[in-house]
């Protein structure tokens, strides 16, 4: 029982990271209908930048916001310089560009910082408190930081005029232009926010998976699964999907182990966790393509 609670708690902690990544994916998807395959590598690159600042002995809570800001600028620049000229290009060309971006960030990280695995210190103090048998301080920190971030984003989109303009641009770009909104900049801003969000996600997960250029490849897959579970056009759903996928992933491993102990048959264990994400993706796409919280869309033809 205790182990089950532990698994759920750490599932929620990983889920927080999946939720952030899923939200970053959704943020770009709702305004451009593109899935940014490079989202994970951009997050990885940001995590390396934080690590570099830490090596230069910057305090973590200065390094992270600085890198989030730099990532925001990189996100805006990628949109303006690379995707803007391609706005009328067919969707396959865009996919190729995303894969190119993925490779670029991947190779740049390897070239600058090397391919060896690096230890990434947790920024959260190691203290014990009630219930700390179930969940570690870093995991609580992951959940707390993500929650704060999501709350901030929610407030930004709900309460500020700029957030409202971004929502309007995503929903009806032609109409937003007719309201005098500079829609092109809103798209770039969405890219920037997604990149900043990815930076935080990458940095939070780095102490768990360790720092290396491949660190985000599996995690991005979970991010996709989370976004799909929640409905790819639904920010709130993406967050819920992140936590659902995080917990499901751990439970699959947990019950797989139990079953193996009871019957001696090995079906799924910790090694197959990544498969869980893929099974979720396939299940959602076949059973309920619009996701748990998404709206089914009809199109007049």
């Amino acid at each position, binding site marked *: 029982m205790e182990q089950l609670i532990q698994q759920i708690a750490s599932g929620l902690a990983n889920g927080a990271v999946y939720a952030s990544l899923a939200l970053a994916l959704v943020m770009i998807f709702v305004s451009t209908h593109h899935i940014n395959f490079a989202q994970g590598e951009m997050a990885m690159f940001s995590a390396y930048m934080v690590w570099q600042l830490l090596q230069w002995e910057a305090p973590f809570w200065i390094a992270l916001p600085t890198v989030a800001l730099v990532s925001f600028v990189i996100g805006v620049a990628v949109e303006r310089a690379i995707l803007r000229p391609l706005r009328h290009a067919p969707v396959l060309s865009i996919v190729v560009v995303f894969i190119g971006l993925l490779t670029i960030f991947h190779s740049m990280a390897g070239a600058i910082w090397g391919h060896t695995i690096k230890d990434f210190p947790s920024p959260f103090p190691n203290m014990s408190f009630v219930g700390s048998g179930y969940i570690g301080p870093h995991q609580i920190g992951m959940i707390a930081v993500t929650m704060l971030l999501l709350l901030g984003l929610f407030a930004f989109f709900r309460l500020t*005029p700029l957030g*409202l303009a971004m929502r*309007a641009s995503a*929903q*009806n770009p032609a*109409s*937003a232009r*007719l*309201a005098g*909104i500079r829609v092109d900049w809103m798209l770039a801003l969405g890219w920037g926010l997604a990149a900043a969000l990815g930076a935080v996600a990458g940095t939070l997960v780095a102490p768990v998976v360790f720092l290396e250029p491949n660190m985000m490849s599996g995690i991005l897959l979970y991010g996709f699964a989370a976004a799909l579970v929640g409905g790819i056009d639904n920010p709130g759903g993406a967050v819920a999907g992140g936590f659902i996928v995080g917990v499901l992933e751990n439970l699959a491993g947990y019950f797989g182990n139990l079953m193996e102990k009871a019957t001696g048959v090995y079906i799924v264990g910790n090694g197959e966790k990544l498969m869980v994400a893929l099974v979720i993706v396939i299940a959602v796409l076949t059973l309920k393509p619009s996701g748990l919280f998404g709206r089914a869309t009809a199109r007049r033809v």
Partner: protein
Amino acid sequence: MAALLEVEALDAFYGQTQALHGVSFALAPGGITALLGANGAGKTTTLRSICNMVRTQGSILIDGRPINRLPTEEIVRIGVGHVPEGRGTFTNLSVDENLRVAAYSRRDRAACERDREMVYEFFPILKQRLAQQAGTLSGGEQQMLAVSRALMLSPRLMLLDEPSFGLAPIVVQEIFHIMRRINSQAKVSMLLVEQNATLALELADHAHVLETGRVVMSGTSATIKNNEAIRKSYLGY
């Protein structure tokens, strides 16, 4: 008097297809001008050209200033409120948010508040619907919201694309009545595209009849109304 809007030798294109051929007309400040014609005559295209939503050649001047090369959002900021075909409602946003989005480009808060009150005065029903999701409004209410969004820009010129489309006659009457009030009270000039020629000629002081992308007749509403040949061949009544 200098023209508020001046369109000179305007060509417009959708891909390779030319939709307008040398359209020229002018609109005096304070007036209401109607663009009439059958389906595909180029009425909507003319409005879209003014807001740079299609590829054009020729010149379009607002207060004597050429606007052809400006992006849509900058033309809007000069004071052109476009009520688009299909109303352009932000369906997932509330009515209140729709109105706030419309005033996004403005920095004059007090004047925005006054315009908000003016909108409520013209369309009291919207004040009751503020918290409602705009997509759930009736067609007539969405049309009122579309006109209100344009009003929140504090425009000098309003481009109206078939405000009567798909609405019950009694609702159309109401909206046209309010458009006249907007024109006289808020001093907004209007360029009106309508299929319903009778209705449009009642409201407008001038009209231009378009056929296959060309202006075939221009004049005061009265002249056009009384020209039997034009009426029979282009306006269909």
